[in-house]
């Protein structure tokens, strides 16, 4: 289980998530979103990030959380990630961006297989800085899973 050195933490439906700060390219205020008809809820829109067309994804959908309306603090975190081996720029919706934190000395646990509302395999680890509860999502798996679902839907259609 590899834990990034520095993480960016953000809030989503009352929970705190952390992603590798290395992967983050920039943080934007919510731009105009173009809905893609028929696209899965997890990646339902497209945004223009300085001339590049970037899919906008919502971890809240992947984790089956309540989908909050975009508010004053809502931001889009633009990250670089590998999707099926292809380097891809992706936008993530966050209710609020919190902090960039060092992970050194922070206790990290594996996600317990039971006792959670979410799919355990979507969570790479849970960090406990100062007794808080911070989720490190397995973005690669979540992206791969969402693509697989999209393909299945397409087949069915």
């Amino acid at each position, binding site marked *: 289980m590899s834990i990034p050195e520095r993480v960016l933490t953000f809030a989503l439906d009352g929970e705190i998530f952390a992603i590798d700060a290395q992967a983050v390219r920039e943080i934007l205020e919510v*731009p*105009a979103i*173009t*809905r*893609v*008809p*028929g*696209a*899965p809820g997890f*990646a339902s829109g*497209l*945004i*223009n990030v300085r*001339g*590049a*067309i*970037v*899919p906008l*994804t919502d971890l809240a959908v992947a984790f089956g959380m309540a989908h909050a309306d975009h508010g004053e603090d809502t931001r889009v975190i633009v990250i670089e990630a590998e*999707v*099926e081996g*292809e380097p*891809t*720029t*992706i936008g993530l919706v966050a209710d609020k961006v919190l902090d960039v934190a060092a992970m050194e000395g922070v206790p990290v646990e594996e996600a317990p297989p039971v006792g959670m509302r979410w799919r355990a395999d979507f969570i790479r680890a849970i960090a406990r800085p100062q007794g808080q509860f911070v989720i490190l999502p397995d973005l690669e798996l979540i*992206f791969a899973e*969402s*693509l697989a679902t*999209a*393909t299945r839907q*397409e087949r069915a259609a």
Partner: protein
Amino acid sequence: MSEDDPVAAFRVEAAELLDSVEAALLDLAGDSTNTGLVDEVFRGLHTLKGSGAMFGFEALARFTHHCETAFDRVRKGHAEASQALIGVVLSARDHMQALIDVGTQGDPMLEMAGEAILSSLEKAVANSEGMAIPRAMPTERKGWHISFKLPPGSMANGTNPLPLLDELRGLGDCLITPRLDEVPPLASLVPTECYIYWDIVIEGDVTCEDIEDVFIFVIDDMDLAITPLIEEPESDEPVEVLPVATVLAAPQPVAKAAPPAQESVRVAAERLDELMNRVGELVIAQSRLAQLAASVGPVNELTLRAVSEDIERLSAELRDTTMAMRMMPVGNLFGRFRRLVHDLARETGKTIELVTHGEATEVDKTVIERLADPMIHLIRNSCDHGLETADDRVASGKSATGRLTLSARQAGGEVLIAITDDGRGIDRERVRAKAEAQGLIQPGAILGDGELFQMIFHPGFSTAAAITNLSGRGVGMDVVKRSIESLRGTIDIASTPGMGTTMTLHLPLTLAIIECMLVRVGEGRYAIPLSVVEECIELPAAEVTSTARRNFLDVRGELVPYLRLRDTFGTDYPADLFQKVVIVGQGRGRVGLVVDQIIGNTQTVIKSLSRFHAGQGSFSGATILGDGNVALILDVGNLIVAAQKNQRLLGERAGEVA
């Protein structure tokens, strides 16, 4: 250039040499007495050997030497350029490519393979000896013999021998031999001195003054001897002159080292000049705009509009010029298939003649690159499955030689590339039987030829089993179709039993920028490629309220099915009172798309969708509009298929109810 990797430069040069050798060999196969072609092959091999040795490709030099010797015999009339010899040298050419790819280290496995080729080469030469045709040697030689040596210290004074040599080469065909015997051992070599002197044989209509002009700035203190060439008697060994050419390669790579092949495009100089002019104008327009922006007080609207119009015109021109630079003639692509067809003919034992038309048709560079693989597959198919063996052909009253035609032409915004064979044609019944067995079509369903043949593009629909008993190779036809579609192209098949098959690829001229019609559906804006839009009409009032029972429009007596994009895209934004229908057509399909509003035409730069949305089907890409928002580009081909499927479903459901 000097900081470039010399080995990379050699590879580029070698690739060009091998290409020209291959082309000459293939031409020679059809015209074995053409001495010009024999010379060309010989020269290519010769230069390759020389520069290979220079850059440390020892194995390549040794191997090439044998092929060169073989062709030297052909040149001198001791042996004949037989088909067997050409075949061996072609495979030797591939071996040379492999030797170059391996690099200077060498590879024992390759060496062994090389030995095998060399022994068959020897056999081929031995067999063709004696059958040789005496060849006529060039009798007239006009030109000069020049030898020159720069004075000591001239390099330090800024004299560079390379431009001088280049200039001489510009005058006529040159054989340049650097004389290296005065080069001292490394320890005593002064790097700023030029120790090399040159012997040059220049052929062509050149006067002594022309040559002296070249040396005009250095002629005073240099050693320069210019003597007219004496006509050489026939029987003399002209080879005496030719080895000189080996060394010719030595100064060359330094003088004109080309950038690595994969990343370079040859662009006509005038196109570059044009581009430069536009950029210059753009800079001026920009500074006018900057001045306006910096000016105090209200901006004069007219001035602003003038600047805006200028920039609009310039960016359109810049776009066109830049696009033109990306265009390449399809001849480059067709050239690659000559070898393929030659090899296929040998593998299958058929005689195949390759005919090409319209090589000058220009297509975007990316399209050409991505077209090679699918076309190789289609050509293989035609040669393997389409064309019959010579005996079968004669039996069915055709000429024994099968003919494969590649043709290209431009039609509107599309380029059509057709692969035609005059073989047996596609067996309709077998395709139908297979399609029915796989449940792709209903038994007894009435299908047009075009629709039926599209079945062979279905994944898992083995063309081999469907059409002949020969085994299929490599990628399937579904992969071919997908790669053509990824270029926003389509494939049409036409086939006449016993007469042959034509596969036509419809490809867009360019991938990057297209004209689009911008429409609004609900609150979303979408772009439809203008090349497929046929007309726009208003949705008749009677249709507005009708349920999705009978989605047909009567357009001047023709029934056109239509799709309500509002339903397709599931929008709940209130509909416009007067909806419009954009009638689009591609291939045989014609369909109306009902939209809320037609916004207008726009130029769009196509951006591909990420993996998350690429499988969506309804969209082929996205673009950024003037206001910075993203608009999706409709994939009309897919929408038509969806509409037709929908219509069939509706029809079947209606049948069940009744």
